[in-house]
């Protein structure tokens, strides 16, 4: 939080345009699991968000969620709900909360937390089966989370 405060100060002085990134441990959720504040201050790129969601080595959301919106990508999972219309059903802050840590919105959900670095049982180093490094990175970076949120916001029902 300190870093953020500093960056706002800098903003006020008009010297720095970008907000410092909010670290995984510092994200603030409201009572319903939503995250109001952008993790980076920079707008997300929906095109990039779509790539992240549908690429196995990135978000791999498609392994659990199907959607007409990315029907060109093969092998949609059915563990989670369809995502078409997610941008109508949820606000941007709610979607950010879902991607950062869906367990704050849905208690006990099987959906993994994509921007979280501790509190795991036997965390590993990605898919190697080996122990995680001490500074385990979140599955998605702050900007990748923003990109995914930006893409989810485009999933409207009409």
């Amino acid at each position, binding site marked *: 939080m300190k870093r953020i405060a500093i960056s706002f100060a800098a903003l006020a002085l008009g010297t720095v345009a970008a907000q410092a990134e909010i670290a995984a441990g510092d994200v603030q959720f409201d009572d319903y699991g939503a995250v109001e504040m952008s993790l980076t201050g920079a707008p997300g790129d929906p095109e990039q968000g779509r790539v992240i969601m549908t690429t196995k080595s990135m978000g791999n959301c498609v392994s659990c969620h199907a959607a007409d919106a990315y029907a060109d990508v093969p092998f949609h999972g059915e563990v989670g709900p369809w995502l078409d219309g997610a941008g109508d059903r949820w606000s941007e802050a709610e979607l950010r909360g879902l991607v950062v840590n869906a367990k704050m919105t849905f208690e006990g959900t099987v959906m993994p937390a994509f921007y979280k670095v501790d509190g*795991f*049982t036997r965390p*590993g180093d990605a898919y190697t089966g080996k122990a995680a490094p001490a500074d385990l990175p979140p599955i998605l970076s702050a900007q990748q989370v923003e990109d995914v949120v930006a893409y989810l916001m485009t999933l409207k029902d009409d």
Partner: protein
Amino acid sequence: MKFKYTHSAAAVLLAIGLASPAMADEEAELVINDEIEIVTKTTAPAHLDGHLDEILSGWRFRSDDTQAMQMDDFDNPAMLGAEAGMELFETAWGSEGKSCADCHTDLESLSHVRPTYPKWNEGAGEVRTMQMQINDCLTGRMGAEAEKYDSNNMLNLEAALSSVARGLPVNVAIDGPAAETWEKGKEIYYTRFGQLELSCANCHEQNYGNMIRADHLSQGQINGFPAYRLKNAKLNGVQGRFKGCVRDTRAETFSPGSPEFIALELYVASRGNGLSIEGPSVRN
């Protein structure tokens, strides 16, 4: 759950209109060589009350082609391993010049083994998997070196021992002295491991029947092991499979042969009490 599955799978197929993995016929019945009737679906054992009503073999979730390969021993690539295991059974192995057959007559006399392991061993004061028991014979009675966990020889012997037990019901004991190990295995089954925070139950109890990417989730039963996987074209042991699943949660895995996986094997085997032994099986 079944309705949801059929409904949404059909919708996915319609929506993407692309080659999708061939769907299983979950209602098919397995008869091997037109002779051995295999129970692939039955009422769940009492200890699963509140978790599952019905237990299903992984065979039911495989594509028609993969299902068919297991219906005839000539088409089942896993049977090559079983044959190699049958030969090993007759082969003298260590400094004592003895084969398994010298003590056990023939494989058929051991048909009760595959359905009842892992099992409490009174003398050793521990729960033993088949592989641990085989190693005890190798080192204790035959003067041979212990085999590594999931070595080719081990998997071939397991395949041979499974092949003679096909059609017999899984019936591992979970009470008495095995209870403590069983409880430990149960705890592991429901623990959410790794950075993805997923337990065995999240996938195999809550989501069996659903697709996860290109994989059709089964109940993760082990009545079909050892399993010949088309993916790696060889026999795979139970604990090697566990290791792969734990790794896929972005976790630090346990090793085959570890106390954790021995306990987990007992627990997962007990979730299949009542299904037939059908291994060595074919899976993708």
